[in-house]
């Protein structure tokens, strides 16, 4: 019991110190998580709108693929992306291995199916009267998609919450494509792994507490907006 209290005390001391390493890790986590969430929404919402509205006979196939993508193991995504960007890979010339760009790319790949799947589910849940109007109003496809997305925006916020949760909590992909380089590609989750490996549990727990605090703040804000939208 006393050991547990000691570890918690160490963790709180690390947070209170708020040293340079800590700040760098925190800032990079927010940057990578924010940018990859934004990119995943940018890609995923239109895909979800199409999936939610289309009457294509292939809709079920595409939905199955997107839903499978929602449970894509981060380590698998990480290794596949690393192969693609490796020196001898198709994108080898870009020099991306172990860079922040690679981390953003990997997390975007992980979060886009979530943004698309949750958006498609929200639009799929529109009442018949709304769907039929969207289909028959004299609007271009972009107008229809915008109308549908706007109608279900609390559901789209749920997509944002889920996407952000996915990118900030995963460790496998960023560890593999980013390399967990101190001061360059280390984020909260990889820092936790690093500290835990070295049995520095106070530091590891400190990063974990901050990670949870970020999740709490972001999710509280989005949930507040979501419940306002549902009224």
């Amino acid at each position, binding site marked *: 019991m006393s050991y547990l209290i000691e570890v918690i005390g160490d963790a709180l001391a690390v947070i209170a110190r708020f040293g340079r390493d800590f700040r760098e890790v925190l800032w990079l986590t927010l940057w990578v998580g924010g940018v990859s969430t934004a990119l995943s929404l940018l890609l995923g919402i239109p895909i979800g709108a199409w999936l939610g509205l289309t009457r294509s006979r292939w809709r079920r196939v595409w939905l199955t693929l997107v839903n499978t993508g929602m449970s894509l193991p981060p380590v698998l995504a990480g290794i596949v992306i690393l192969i693609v960007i490796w020196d001898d890979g198709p994108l080898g010339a870009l020099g991306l291995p172990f860079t922040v760009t690679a981390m953003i790319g990997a997390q975007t790949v992980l979060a886009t199916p979530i943004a698309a799947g949750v958006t498609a589910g929200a639009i799929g849940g529109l009442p018949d*009267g709304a*769907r*039929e*109007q969207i*289909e*028959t109003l*004299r609007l271009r496809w972009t107008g229809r998609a915008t109308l549908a997305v706007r109608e279900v925006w609390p559901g789209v916020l749920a997509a944002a919450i889920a996407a952000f949760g996915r990118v900030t909590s995963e460790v496998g992909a960023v560890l593999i494509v980013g390399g967990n380089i101190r001061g360059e590609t280390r984020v909260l989750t990889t820092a936790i792994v690093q500290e835990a490996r070295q049995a520095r549990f106070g530091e590891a727990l400190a990063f974990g507490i901050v990670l949870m605090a970020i999740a709490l703040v972001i999710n509280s804000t989005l949930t507040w907006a979501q419940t306002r939208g549902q009224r």
Partner: protein
Amino acid sequence: MGSADVHLVYPADGSIVDVDLELRPSETLVLYGPNGSGKSTILRLLAGTLGGGALLDAAYLPQTPHLFRGTVARNLALGLTVEETAHARQLLDDFGLGDLVGRHAAGLSGGQRQRVLLARTLAQRSAWVLLDEPLAAFDVADRMSTAAVIRRQLAERSAVVVTHEQDEAMMLADRVAVVIEGDIAQIGAPGAVFGMPADASVAAALGLANVFDGVVAVVEGALCGVDIDGARVWGVGAGKVGAPARVTFGAETVTLYSDAGASGGSARNWWVGTVEQLRPVGRLVEVVVTSGTLQVLAVVTPGAVDALDIAPGVVVTAAAKATAVRVLSA
């Protein structure tokens, strides 16, 4: 724009809808039929909301009135040009809701939502107008005034309107198509269809619960006396003595008397019989009376059941005026 002949099948095996329909320009065709008969499916096939693309360039009002987030003004303008939007606002004025344009759509009642959607749909200058149960959300008073605006707006336009109410069909239709089990059972002018149902299934769809087959025994001007297994039923129709005939009349046109010997009043048809069964039909009660070989259906209020002590086994007299009974060539 000329007539369009469309063949509609849904789903692929035609188990829900399988119809050939002639759509005429500058005409309002009303699809009339009981709930679940497939008339909305026909409209959705024309509008293209069941997949396969729209068959017509049409403004479409779905059965369920849904307004999108935002103001009434935003909803009115969706998919419309500036001129059409101005027309939609004018129509909203005609519906008596002009002061709602700035209101948030979420605060509107079902009837108000329906009128906003009607204004937008009618304002769209498309070749066709497709309306699914446009008056279902209204009470009787609003239904009449809204129907008048719709009728005015559809004059000279090409439209297909779905309803399961006869009075709405009469108000709006140039032609009525009776839809039964996904097929057109009868099509024609409203007076002809409602006045002369083609067969027993159409008669049933029109609420004419009593249908009997017999032979014309007497013709007295517009009245025919038809013998049905020994019983004579008088009704209006053109028949020849000796010709087979079908007799139909609505259950609501039958009057019940607790006195087995009642015979006063102007009704030409009197049947003394025994109450076989009482069945609740919504807020009313359907009473089955057996008189000889005839089984007559009457609809009465629960209050009348109590007042007349109607119960299975009780002897009553059922009466129907000959003018309420239609005699059709079988």
